[in-house]
Every structure is written in C-alpha cells, then in structure tokens.
C-alpha cells in the first residue's frame, strides 16, 4: 500500500506508514532481513525501492544489514534498516561502530517479546537495548518513540533529519502493536532541511585528501579527546531535541510516565482518573534519548507520586528515578509482555498505589 504526499488521510498499518515515510524522506537504500512483527517494512521496500530505482538488498543476516546501512551512509546518502528485538541484538556491534564513526544510520526497531527468541507479541522490553545499547563503549543513539501511526510517519521523517543533523545513529523504537495496527495517517512533505554533508562523506578522493571513517584509535589520549567531543554532541542533542507530550500535569498529584503504544492506554487511564476525582496527569516521552529528565525534575518538585507505566519488567523507570532523584515516590505499573495493560487495569493499580 503506497501513499504519496497528500491532504487525504489513508488507513495504514504502522509498519507501512514507517516504510512510506522513509521513502518520502528520501531514503535511498534499504537493507534488511525479515523478522516478525516488522516484515511488512522490508516487503514494502523491496517493491518500492526497485520501482524508484533506489537500492534494496535482502541481506544475509542482520549483521550484514546494519553494516550495509553503515556502508551506504558513509557515502552521504540516506539509508536505513529495520528489525526487531532478538535481531536488533545482532546489530549492536554495527550500532556501536556507527556511533563511533558518526554515521547517520536509521534503524527501525519494532519491539517484540524477549529475552531470547521470546515471542512476536508487542513489548517494550528493548527500552534498554535502544537507550543503553548492547554495543561496546560509551555511546548514545537518538531514540524516538511513536505512539500513533501518524507519529510512525512523522518520527520516521524526524529520525532521518536528526541522524543527518547530528551525524548520529537514530532509532525509531516502535513495537508490534504499532507495527500491526491501522490508523488514519497523512503524509506531509518532508519538513526538514537537507543537511550539508559534503565535508565528510566518502565520494572518492578527487581533488582533496583521502577521508577515513574509522573508530580505531590506537592512542589512548586521542580517544579521550574524541569521547569528550562525542559527549559534547550528546549534550547538545539533550539541550536541543528533547521532546515529550504532557497532558493534565498543571495541577496533578500523580504523573504517569509512559511511552509508545502503552502511553495510549495510560492517557485514557489518566482521563478516567480525572472523572473519578483523582488529579492524574501524564508525561509521554517522545524522545527516549534524550530523555525529558529536566521536565521530570521540575514536576517531581510539585507532585506527590510518579508512576512509570511500561510493557516490560520496569526499564524506563530507571531513567524516571534518576530524574526524580528521590524527591517523590516512583512506582511501576507494568505488564511483562503483550498488549499494554488496559486503561481500567491501570486505573485500578493507581488506586491501589495511593
């Protein structure tokens, strides 16, 4: 199902919305290996990229897919790969290299159950995988978490933009629910400026010195300087790009923190709480790195409790606790894997916690 830039809404699965948006964002190369629940992305790309004369490779593994993406990105074109959980695990080496090489790799990570093979149901069990990374060394990935199919499209645009702007691998962290659900979506024109990359991309050393994109740093002192520079960039990303949505927090006693598909249910839960006279608000991080730490710090000075609502055993809650720093109690409402806890379940757990 293809969509063009149009005023009309189309009903589309999250996976297709992501793939469509990637094409409209100017993604020139797609490399991937199938895995449920994101296979629609590769299926769509296989047809569309060939139709447009762009690059598509059915990679032999996720190891190959991420490294093909790195290769393409090193030439300055927009390129992406997509995968899920246990297969994103295979990409961690590449992501560490891409972070060190400062290459604008875009990875669509559609989470499923884990650990190990787990299952194909929705999950948020890869919050750590995305924000902490499984690759070696000190690095950060920019992580965007859509909550609707419209955001699947809009944040795919943004993922390409931020990846280019900061020369940093960027993850769109969706989940099986968002990937498989349909919702009306509208494709606007790619709203971001194109970033000039003429000073670093590999094009062949014509009329200039050869460029080397590498992470090998044989001298420890150089590596110290390099890492400080890298982290200065991350600081800049934190200052400029932290994004979140906030509803009903002005007078809230309790703030729910929830991202992605789970935030949909948490929002409804907050609404039900209000109807029952409980002053509950919600903060939905849209960027997981950078995390809205500052805003949570501010909120923790005036609320009575903060509750992290997640579909995992409690991962984002660590970032929430770091932000709140003991000022108010931080609690967890969770479901280990599968569809998010229903709004009613969330409400009853809130009532138990207070």
């Amino acid at each position, binding site marked *: 199902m293809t969509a063009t830039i149009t005023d009309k809404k189309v*009903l589309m699965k999250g996976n297709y919305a992501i793939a469509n948006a990637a094409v409209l964002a100017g993604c020139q190369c797609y490399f991937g290996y199938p895995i449920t629940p994101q296979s629609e992305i590769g299926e769509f790309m296989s047809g569309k990229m060939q139709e447009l004369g762009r690059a598509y490779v059915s990679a032999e593994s996720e190891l190959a897919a991420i490294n093909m993406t790195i290769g393409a990105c090193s030439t300055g074109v927009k390129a992406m790969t997509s995968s899920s959980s246990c297969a994103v695990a295979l990409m961690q080496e590449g992501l560490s290299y891409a972070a060190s090489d400062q290459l604008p790799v875009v990875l669509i990570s559609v989470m499923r159950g884990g650990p190990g093979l787990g299952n194909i149901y929705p999950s948020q069990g890869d919050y750590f995988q995305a924000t902490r990374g499984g690759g070696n060394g000190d690095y950060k990935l920019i992580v965007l978490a859509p909550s609707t199919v419209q955001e699947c499209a809009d944040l795919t645009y943004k993922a390409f933009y931020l990846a280019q702007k900061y020369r940093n691998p960027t993850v769109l962290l969706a989940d099986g*629910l968002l990937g498989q659900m349909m*919702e009306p979506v509208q494709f606007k024109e790619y709203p971001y400026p194109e970033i000039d990359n003429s000073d670093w991309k590999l094009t062949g050393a014509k009329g200039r010195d050869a460029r080397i994109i590498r992470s090998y740093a044989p001298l420890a002192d150089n590596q110290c300087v390099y890492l400080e520079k890298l982290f200065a960039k991350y600081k800049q990303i934190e200052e400029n790009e932290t994004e979140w949505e906030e509803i009903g927090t002005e007078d809230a006693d309790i703030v729910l923190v929830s991202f992605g598909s789970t935030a*949909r*249910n948490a929002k409804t*839960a907050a609404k039900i709480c209000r109807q029952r006279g409980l002053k509950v608000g919600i903060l939905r991080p849209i960027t997981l790195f950078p995390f809205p730490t500052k805003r949570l710090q501010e909120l923790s000075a005036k609320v009575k409790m903060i509750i992290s609502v997640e579909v995992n055993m409690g991962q984002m809650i660590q970032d929430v606790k770091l932000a709140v720093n003991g000022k108010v109690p931080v609690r967890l409402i969770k479901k280990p894997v599968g*569809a998010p806890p229903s709004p009613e379940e969330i409400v009853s757990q809130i009532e138990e916690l207070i």
Partner: protein
Amino acid sequence: MEKDFIIAGFGGQGVLLAGEVLANGFMIDDKNVTWYPSYGAEMRGGTVNCTVVMSEEEVGAVQKTSADFIIVLNQASFDKYVSWVKKGGSIIVNSSLAVIKKTREDINYIFVPITKLAQDKLGNIKMSNILALGALSKVSKLISLETLEKALHNVIPARRANLIPKNIEALKLGYEYDLLKV
C-alpha cells in the same frame, strides 16, 4: 463517545478485510479509528479476529476485551465472544455456521445466515464478510451503506476493481437481511 467492534471467524473468511473496510468507513466519516488484528503464528483455517475502535476523541487502547458490536462468522467465535458483548450491545451471528442459541438476556442477538445468503444470492461464499458489514450498518446505525461503499473503493486495489459491484451487492444484501425470508 467510543464504540468498539470485533469481527471474528475462521482464517480465510475475510475477517481482517471486513475490519479494514469498516475502519476505512469511519475514517471517511472523519472519526478517529484504529484497527488491530489478532496476529501470531496464524494459519489458514485457524481463528482470527480484529478489533475496530471508533471515537470522536483520540483512541486510546486498541485491543479490547469487550465490544459494543461483535460479528462472529463461525461457531468457535460465537462461543468465545458472546460473553464479550457489552451490556446492551449486539452480536451478529452467522447462523449458517453457528447454532442459534441465546444465553444472555442483556444483549441483542442478530442471527443472519450469512454464508448461505452469500452462496445463494451472490454465488460466492467469499462475500460473507462484506455481507456481514451490511448487517452491521443496519444494526449499529453508526455507519451508512454509502460510506461503506466508499470504503470498499479504498480497500479493494484498482486491479481488482471488477469485484466492487459484487461487494456492494453483498453490503445491500446484508443490510436487508431482515426483509429476506431465509
């Protein structure tokens, strides 16, 4: 106001497609809407269902354990989902493939011999899913036949456009089920 719909049946009965047409219809009517399938290691002949949520406001949860309107196209789905119908809600039952039996007083049962109608009147049991939507239009009063017709154009790809007239017939047949002596 939020209304929840579940459509369930055998894999191959067009359950997911019917949901997609319904969700497209609500989109055409400018409602907020979500469609969510049962997904997993599905196989042809296994059971399958999808949930459509329509609302004037932003849709929260997309997966439900109860619904205002449920369409069941086979016995197994009838058995499973009858308890999911909200009080005062309706269940549309394909009586060609499920035994007519009422176990609840607080919901409306609409028995329609969907498969038989599709076979006898349209000569194609594959029209069952769309026929069921016609019945839903009548029962729910939440979506018009005209809108569903437009939705069919959204869902059926251009290269299969020849199937649209027959599907429109199916919609009408489902809508008029109660006028037919079957």
